[in-house]
């Protein structure tokens, strides 16, 4: 077993375990911290796939900005007490069953798909994930969506301020 395979399995197990811990943690702050672990594991996967730009952006945007925003809101509302009234046990059971059925459908669709037999994802090499290539395409071919996303951010900022301000 090569080093990259060991890394792949380690990161996969870490991501799945942390994702399950996000669900079963009673305290919302622990959920946020476990979700940060998931994002770091996914960034590790991006690095393994040699998508270095996305790995860094994932850490900066998700683990750095979005999760800090979540922590800020949780601490602002003083929610770090474990008093969430739990749902009916049958509701929990049916939720888990629904998720499991969806997973079953995904897995059986993957097993029966003919197009992906023998295909491999190239790991550790390939230069399309580097900033040079992505930057060239982003500022030539995708320049218009890039500029439109700035308008999206502006409207999101205005919307957040308008919704959040006291009446």
């Amino acid at each position: 077993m090569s080093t990259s395979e060991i890394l792949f399995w380690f990161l996969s197990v870490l991501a799945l375990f942390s994702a399950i811990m996000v669900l079963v943690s009673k305290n919302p702050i622990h959920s946020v911290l476990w979700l940060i672990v998931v994002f770091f594991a996914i960034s590790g996967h991006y690095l393994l796939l040699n998508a270095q730009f996305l790995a860094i952006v994932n850490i900066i945007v998700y683990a750095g900005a979005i999760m800090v925003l979540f922590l800020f809101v949780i601490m602002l509302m003083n929610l770090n007490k474990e008093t969430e009234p739990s749902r009916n046990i049958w509701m929990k059971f049916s939720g888990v069953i629904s998720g499991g059925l969806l997973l079953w459908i995904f897995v059986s669709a993957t097993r029966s798909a003919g197009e992906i037999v023998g295909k491999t994802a190239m790991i550790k090499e390939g230069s399309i994930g580097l900033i040079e290539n992505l930057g060239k395409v982003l500022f030539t071919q995708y320049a218009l969506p890039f500029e439109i996303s700035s308008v999206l951010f502006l409207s999101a900022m205005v919307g957040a301020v308008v919704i959040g301000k006291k009446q």
Partner: protein
Amino acid sequence: MPIQYYIILAACLFCIGVAGVLTRRNAIIVFMCIELMLNAVNLMLVAFSKMHYAAAFATDNASTAGTDAQLFVFFIMVVAAAEVSVGLAIIVMMYRNIHSVDINFLNRLKN
């Protein structure tokens, strides 16, 4: 790595997110599970991008196939950041009005 491993991993992460949305009542944790589902899709797109590139690399050494998928992931992250800021503002407003983040109290539009 065979692409099936990545598909199964992303499907597992996505279904954990779905189960979380269905089982938890805290609005913030439901929101975090939606982020988890978005990240599962991102991982899938990057894996497919490298699968596409591996097929094109075999014939053309300087191919840039698969670049689009990585830019899609970049734009998904951009939209997710905007979505989180608005969503958390809505949750803060809901907490201010009904003093709870329990989604079972969100069953009416008035008040």
